[in-house]
């Protein structure tokens, strides 16, 4: 059987809570829209900062990873030199110059020897 105290309790509990069911706050929607706009701006700044940071990190990584070692530079230089025909020619010419420097000096004949030569 229903306890009348329970019924009164349930009714007054419901009545009491329903009085606080809705609490309208004047100007609340305006405050929310302002807060949402601020949140939107903040998130745009955060997004662009993270994009800029990531881009900077990628640039540094590219520069670091693509920088050749000294040995690689030497190899590249030699390969370029080997492919460059003008450089080869220059090498040859350079070698010829060296040979001319090394060749023995020949004394030129004097005027007397020329005049005394047979058939002069």
């Amino acid at each position, binding site marked *: 059987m229903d306890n009348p*105290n329970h019924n009164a309790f349930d009714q007054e509990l419901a009545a009491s809570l329903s009085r*606080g069911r809705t*609490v309208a706050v004047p100007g609340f*929607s305006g405050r929310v829209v302002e807060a949402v706009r601020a949140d939107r701006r903040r998130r745009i700044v955060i997004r662009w900062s993270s994009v800029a940071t990531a881009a900077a990190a990628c640039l540094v990584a590219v520069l670091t990873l693509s920088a050749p070692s000294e040995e690689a530079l030497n190899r590249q230089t030699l390969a370029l030199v080997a492919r460059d025909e003008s450089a080869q020619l220059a090498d040859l010419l350079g070698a010829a110059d060296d040979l001319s420097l090394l060749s023995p000096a020949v004394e030129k004949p004097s005027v007397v020897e020329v005049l005394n030569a047979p058939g002069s």
Partner: protein
Amino acid sequence: MAQEEPTLPDDEDDKRLMALVAEGDDDALRLLVNRHHARLVGYLRGEVGSQATAEELAMEVFIRLHRAASRWRPEAKLSTYLIHIAHNLVLNEWRRRGRKPTTALEFAAEPGDSTQQSARRVAELDEAFQRAIAQLPPEQRTAILLVVQQELPYEDIAEIMGVPVSSVKTWIHRARSRLRELLKDFYGNE
């Protein structure tokens, strides 16, 4: 207790407004806030016991709703979704504070057309109820607020709290018993 369907805002309008909010329409957001904030603040005030904190949390609910607008799928009613976000924020608030609200609430009764005497009785009762509700364990308080104050069906409460319906029923039963015990001076012993 009567589980009558409360007069909810039109769900179709909510869906339409949410689609506009997802596109960045602030006027649509303003309309949504106007439709739902009073109920949300009422629920939050019952939970945290402070008008200022309730408004602060309600603001955060709408900011989160705005962030999630593009991902929102209208499977549940928007009002239920809002209470779900609010409930999670209440749990965070309790964790942040490191304690649960146990003090009497800032509550001012609105006597309406009652005589002064009955207005005083209403105010007294309201204060007593609010004080008693503040002393309930958090899950019992949430369940009783959602079922009695917000008039939500058990299934929605279970979804909001992430528990089976049976747990919700148990908490509500225990909450009523505990409230009767706390308010025995008003209602006498059983």
